[in-house]
């Protein structure tokens, strides 16, 4: 069941000038959150930000009653969300959307670019718990943008590509040697910019493995009322907020 709930600002962890982890706390319990679920946050102290902002859940702690989000500043909403102060209240609608499917996976490759790494902590943790072997492949422009790798290392192997070659292999994630060597994975999960996910989906077809992508379409509500966030699938337009954000890439008409 979806909830609308008030949280209090707890803390930031700034990863670099443009990326931060926002942690919120509640005195109430936190609903069950599955890997891939997202939330819609009302941005406080920002009358010029009209709509809520959808964010993937990075982590949740049911003992501490905290929920955290990985945020990349891309506009005024994410900028204002990075300027909260102690005591600020943040209203959150969650858990929204579907989740990644895990059953039947033995060896998974998780390919993330930019803020697309956000759902991979929860996903990685659940995969590990189910005994799945995990490799993360993280793509970024430059070394400073390769984030959260220490967290990913706790869950599996971490491969990196940077466009300028300052860390890992040089180029885009799709250029990584993991794709040219003998392919050992039976599932790919991907989240990031659309062109990256499309390229990864094509590779998945070549390799004959299942691929799930988490999409980030713009939306007004997040719970199926506005019909704005649609993606074209082989079964017609579908709402990313309710029928996604996770789609099997073979169903997408992109």
């Amino acid at each position, binding site marked *: *069941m*979806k*909830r*609308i709930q008030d949280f209090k600002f707890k803390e930031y962890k700034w990863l670099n000038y443009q990326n931060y982890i926002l942690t919120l706390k509640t005195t109430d319990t936190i609903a069950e959150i599955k890997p891939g679920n997202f939330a819609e946050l*009302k941005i406080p102290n920002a009358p*010029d*930000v*009209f*709509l*809520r902002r959808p964010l993937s859940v990075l982590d949740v702690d049911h003992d501490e009653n905290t929920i955290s989000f990985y945020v990349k500043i891309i506009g005024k909403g994410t900028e204002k969300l990075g300027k909260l102060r102690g005591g600020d209240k943040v*209203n959150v*609608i969650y858990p929204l959307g579907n989740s990644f499917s895990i059953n039947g996976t033995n060896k998974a490759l998780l390919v993330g670019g930019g803020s697309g790494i956000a759902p991979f902590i929860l996903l990685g943790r659940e995969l590990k718990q189910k005994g799945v072997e995990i490799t993360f492949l993280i793509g970024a422009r430059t070394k400073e943008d390769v984030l959260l790798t220490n967290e990913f290392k706790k869950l599996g192997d971490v491969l990196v590509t940077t466009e300028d070659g300052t860390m890992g292999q040089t180029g885009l994630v799709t250029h990584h040697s993991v794709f040219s060597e003998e392919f050992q994975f039976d599932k790919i999960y991907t989240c990031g910019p659309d062109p990256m996910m499309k390229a990864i989906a094509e590779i998945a077809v070549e390799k004959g493995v299942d691929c799930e992508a988490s999409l980030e*379409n*713009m*939306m*007004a*509500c997040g*719970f*199926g*009322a*506005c*019909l*704005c*966030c*649609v*993606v*074209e699938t082989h079964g*017609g*337009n579908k709402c990313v907020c309710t029928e996604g954000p996770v789609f099997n890439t073979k169903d997408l008409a992109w």
Partner: protein
Amino acid sequence: MVDFGIQIKDLKLKNPVTTASGTFGFGEEFTDFMDLNKLGGIFVKGLTLKHREGNPYPRMAETPSGMLNAVGLQNKGVDYFINTIYPNIKDFDTEIIPNVNGSTIEDYVEVTEKLNEIEGIHSIELNISCPNVKEGGMAFGVSCPSAIAVTEAVRKAYDKTLIVKLSPNVTDITEIAKGVESVGADAVSLVNTFLAMAIDANTRKPLLSTITGGLSGPAIKPIALRMVWQVFNAVQIPVIGMCGIMNATDAIEFILAGSTVIQIGTANFIDPQISVKIIEGIELYCKQQNVDAVSDLIGAMVTK
């Protein structure tokens, strides 16, 4: 105890607060957040004769104090509504009011005839003001003769309360309102979204796939309020007011300007509980102002 009841011919509402078509799905999307039984009514998502896929993504853009949409009447068709959706929502203690759309007058009439058969539905909203479809929609609502023609045809096919939803994208909205009143509309609802657009200066591309779309939200509330007041003074039938209502004060302003009923639209996206909060806020206002019946506030703006 404030008397909240409203009646427009066959349509009896327990209170004047309803939700606007296209902003509240079919109600089911909101049951986790609020009690639908508290609402006066739900104007459900626009229906067409056949399934429609709507417009390509992107269909939405945030603008100052508002949003643009170009959904384009995505829906599974009136038969799917009647057979699959309506049975799930018919037992809620609120009025379910379908919003009827078409590309031709024949389409409008055929959808209407199907809805006329449903016992629990006491009213339809004839949408002649959708700005996001290539054929029909707003084209009917921006000229007086075509607005009259479609309303007259639907009136013949519908026995119960007929509400006509008007477009603000006209030179004089009172002329259209008077026109549809003259051929038997029982009420008018206004306004639908304003035709508008947005451009990304960096990419030089429009923010909507259709280039233009419909603007809603508080950005246009003062214009909508002015139109409600003008139409209230021009026609005898009830006016249903909407556009940019974000709280109870906004809703009361629309009632004072002449609205018998109000619709909550875009605000549902931001706060899915807002309609219930607005009902409570209107009740509190009535108590504070010693108003016995909310209907006493309709058009009660004080000008002297």
